[in-house]
């Protein structure tokens, strides 16, 4: 087949419109989120003392941290559908969740006596955190990877990892509604670890799924 022959076929194929992934993303994100919420309400549920807990700034901190991670890395995932985008240039937004995490930890260290640091960091349910955040991330991660498959990401591993981190951030936000461990030191260790697991899974899946 000569290149001119191939062009004949490409030109004839131009009638079929590809879906607008930008438009579909919103709908699919809601679907992915719905999966997480169903799992959440079936197996976990909102903590009983939610209203009183929210008066504690370190509980609020968990949500801010999760939201900042989600918000700062979502642009990376959305832009990654375009082949000419260099993800490294978007990595600078990652300092935002790091700053949030840093100030949360600093505040925790300043407001609680050193004797409580270790017990706060280990919390009561670290293994539940490590299990639940990745499970809650499955829906959003699937949605993001499917969306990215329709695009043209040229850094498959990094793109998958970013999708994992974003999904982990969203999952952490939902899990924080349930999680009774409120120390920022717990968040710094176990939430980060759980989100890290989802990030690695995203990177590995990206390596195989996001090639084109």
């Amino acid at each position, binding site marked *: *087949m000569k*290149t001119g022959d191939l062009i004949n076929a490409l030109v004839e*194929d131009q*009638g079929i419109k*590809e879906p607008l992934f930008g438009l579909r993303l919103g709908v699919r994100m809601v679907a992915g989120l719905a999966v997480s919420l169903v799992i959440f309400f079936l197996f976990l549920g909102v903590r009983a003392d939610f209203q009183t807990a929210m008066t504690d700034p370190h509980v609020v901190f968990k949500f801010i941290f999760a939201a900042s991670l989600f918000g700062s890395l979502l642009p990376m995932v959305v832009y990654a559908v*375009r082949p*000419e985008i260099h993800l490294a240039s978007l990595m600078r937004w990652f300092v935002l969740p790091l700053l949030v995490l840093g100030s949360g930890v600093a505040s925790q260290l300043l407001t609680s006596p050193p004797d409580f640091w270790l017990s706060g960091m280990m919390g009561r349910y670290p293994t539940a955190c490590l299990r639940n955040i990745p499970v809650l991330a499955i829906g959003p991660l699937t949605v993001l990877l499917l969306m990215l498959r329709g695009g*043209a990401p040229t850094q498959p591993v990094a793109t998958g990892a970013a999708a994992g981190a974003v999904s982990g951030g969203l999952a952490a936000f939902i899990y924080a509604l349930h999680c009774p461990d409120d120390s920022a030191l717990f968040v710094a260790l176990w939430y980060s670890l759980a989100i890290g697991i989802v990030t690695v899974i995203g990177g590995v899946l990206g390596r195989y799924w996001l090639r084109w």
Partner: protein
Amino acid sequence: MHAFDTQTEALAVLLKKAKAGDALAYRSFFERLAPLVRGMARRGIGRVGTPMADLEDAVQETLLAVHLKRHTWREDQPIGPWIGAITRYKLIDLARKYGRRKEIELDETFDLATPEPEQPSLPEREMDRLLESVSETQRVIVRSISIKGVSIREVAGTMKMSEGAVRVALHRALKTLAEAYRRLET
């Protein structure tokens, strides 16, 4: 530099028209694009040091990718970097087949590409071998439309299929071809 600006500007105009449904514009888009991609691919392959015999395969894979991913070009963005990135990505694919993974240093300076016409009388292309991976019907459709230059309507007539079914089969075949090429890697 100015000559290049008008080149890419023309490509952008043509692809815009093509996306709006202008088939003639789409054809001249590819006819202008192919020599540029060829020039860039020659430089890229030369830099990586893999056989130059793959040049036309790389061009064809790039054009196929440009076609299948054309919705990822945003019309308010310059088209040069977009094409450059796709070409580079496909050249990296090609380099991987030879186990060159880490050491490839390719740039995306598509604007330095020297347009280069296709060499006449080349051996069988990779694309022909890859055609073995699609179904019999799809293969006949792709061959008729590409090599024989038959229109979708005529293919539908001879194959006793609806035009819509031929369209779908053609589109699926092209997607499968792109996938099959990727799978050739180790």
